[in-house]
């Protein structure tokens, strides 16, 4: 059963408001919900990341603030809120100030098309996947803004790396998703989830999932593809001049992007909210966190890749592989149609 109707909208209808108020309230409820989801997730994810890395490195990780260090991230966030917001004199002021906001907005907008559970979707666009990719690609511009405006050579190097990396890895990312889209015949995220009721697409498209995972890792700038930050070489790259809450916004959107890209992976390849017994949203959260843990595992295992190897991997390996995957998928679909007429 696909979609199942929009839960929030249905619930609001029972109150008998005029339609315009209904849609306004729906929008507000979803925005608040998504923001709460992002903030709670990010606060907890930072803690989780530190605990996971600690576990892998035979350390304890945060364990002082709150029980088992659970409030560590809260304390960190409060500290960042209380710090002075320094704008260095040599920066391009307006671009510098706008960049952290410009990176955070798309990070929030992405959640509009994620089906969190049965009927739990803010905007069920018929171009859902395309919307996701288009909005997420604007992150590059924000990072470039930050790196350029900081007027710092390390920031500039980082910004240039960001552009080279994120623009090129977008291509295999899109192509890997195409395989799934071809199977479903729709760009609507709810349709994609509905199509996976019997078999998850990771089993039909294992290669596409692999390409998606690698490219997504590069898109969200996480290790081994964290060249943009490149702490050991360019210190913090585009974020080097930022302080306080503006720095936190970059940090926040990085983790928000990690969650959204994992959510997209769950939607496309792991059957979305589909699953027996448990409520649909819980299935979604479980799968989401499995994806996130996978990302963390990779990050804390591998060293950072070099910039020329990074681009070589993309253009000479991932891109041809994703093209072959599309070809094989297309041929497969045609053969399937030929073998079983009437079902299509």
């Amino acid at each position, binding site marked *: 059963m696909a979609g199942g109707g929009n839960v929030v909208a249905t619930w609001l209808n029972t109150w008998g408001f005029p339609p315009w108020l209904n849609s306004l309230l729906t929008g507000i409820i979803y925005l608040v919900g998504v923001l709460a989801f992002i903030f709670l997730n990010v606060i907890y994810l930072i803690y989780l990341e530190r605990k996971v890395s600690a576990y892998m490195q035979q350390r304890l990780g945060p364990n002082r603030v709150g029980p088992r260090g659970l409030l560590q991230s809260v304390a960190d966030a409060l500290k960042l809120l209380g710090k002075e917001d320094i704008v260095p004199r040599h920066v391009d002021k307006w671009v510098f100030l706008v960049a952290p906001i410009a990176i955070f907005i798309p990070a929030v907008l992405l959640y509009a098309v994620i089906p969190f559970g049965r009927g739990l979707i803010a905007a069920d666009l018929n171009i859902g996947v395309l919307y996701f990719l288009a909005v997420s690609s604007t992150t590059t511009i924000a990072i470039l803004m930050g790196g350029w405006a900081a007027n710092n050579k390390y920031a500039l190097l980082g910004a240039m790396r960001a552009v080279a990396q994120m623009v090129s890895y977008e291509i295999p990312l899109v192509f890997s998703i195409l395989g799934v889209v071809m199977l479903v015949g729709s760009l609507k995220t709810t349709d994609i989830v509905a199509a996976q009721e019997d078999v998850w697409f990771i089993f039909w498209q294992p290669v596409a999932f692999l390409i998606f995972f690698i490219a997504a890792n590069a898109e969200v700038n996480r290790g081994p593809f964290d060249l943009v930050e490149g702490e050991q070489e360019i210190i913090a790259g585009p974020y080097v001049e930022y302080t306080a809450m503006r720095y936190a916004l970059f940090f926040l959107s990085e983790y928000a992007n990690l969650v959204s890209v994992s959510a997209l992976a769950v939607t496309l390849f792991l059957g979305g909210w589909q699953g027996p017994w448990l409520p649909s949203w819980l299935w979604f959260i479980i799968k989401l966190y499995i994806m996130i843990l996978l990302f963390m595992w990779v990050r*804390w295992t591998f060293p950072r890749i070099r910039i020329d190897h990074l681009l070589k991997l993309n253009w000479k390996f991932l891109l041809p592989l994703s093209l072959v995957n599309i070809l094989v998928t297309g041929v497969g679909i045609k053969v399937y149609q030929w073998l079983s007429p009437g079902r299509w």
Partner: protein
Amino acid sequence: MKASAQLATEEIILNMGPQHPSTHGVYRAVLTLDGETVVGVQNVLGYLHRGLEKLAEDRTYTQFIPYTDRLDYLAAMLNNLGYVQAVEKLMDIQVPERAEYLRVIMAELSRIASHYVMVASMALDLSGWTAWFPPFRDREKILDLFEMACGSRLTLSYMRIGGVAADIPPEFVPALQRFLQELPRGLEEINGLATGNEIFQARCRGVGKIDLETALAYGLTGPNLRACGLPFDLRKVRPYGIYDRFEFEVPTLDNGDAYDRFVIRLLEIEQSAKIIAQALRDLPEGPVLAKVPRVIKPPEGEVYHQIEGAKGILGFYVVSDGSPKPYRLHIHSPSFVNLGAFPVMAAGGTVQDAVATLASIDIVLGEVDR
């Protein structure tokens, strides 16, 4: 269209350091960059200069021992050893057997500890965060051993002119044996996390390459030279102390790149462990300090003594005018010499390669600037 075809690009100068996560201290490299490619490197030193050589002229011979800890602070025992052996050579002091064996054990432990730091920090400089921990965890055990022997963990000052400061406590030997037993497991972990990792290999192979001729011309010594294929190790070539009694190999590798410089450290750790095991087996009973005069007054004259430090040849040149203080003391430090070859190694690579190369040379700024 025409304008973009003639778009001019300029080289930029990037100031890497003195405060930078990958310069391993207060060292500054002025990089000339063409995009991400390093065109030229200029070494800028002296941020940690403390004038140790001048200070030595106003300290007695014994008082200078703690200063040597501050040279290569990751291998303090080796600096102690080099200095006291130089003075002993000048005064012709016979060191008791037990002290000689203890010195070898401590020196090799120091070498292992220093190599562990190199292995860990090089992995970290390539962003292999997790690979940092196994070597540092094992180094911690060595520091515990040092603490047992001399009460301090980093600045040890364990050696004395004529022997060592104190005998080892009874719990030292079992702890050392346990450490030697656990050592191969730790090395295996490092091999799994760093050496055998595809990305790590891609980052290191062929990076910061230097051939044997150039290496010799720049005076490279120690593991960096042995990674170029020359089996030159003072412990074998010109044995000092009692090193001629031990059986060990001098591992060499051929490529002279960052990867070989990394791997050779792991191989040398194994050899050092072999030496320690032999020294532990043969450790005789007896005094640990020779009968030396209360005030050390070497006869007039000069001496140059060099040992195989963790980073290369560590030399002490001592001139005595017969007074209780050295007339002149000069330290030939391997890190300083090895750093001289950094511009040649780093040129032509990317910024990331330069970081990997610097880590693979393994410099300690306390020794570079003295």
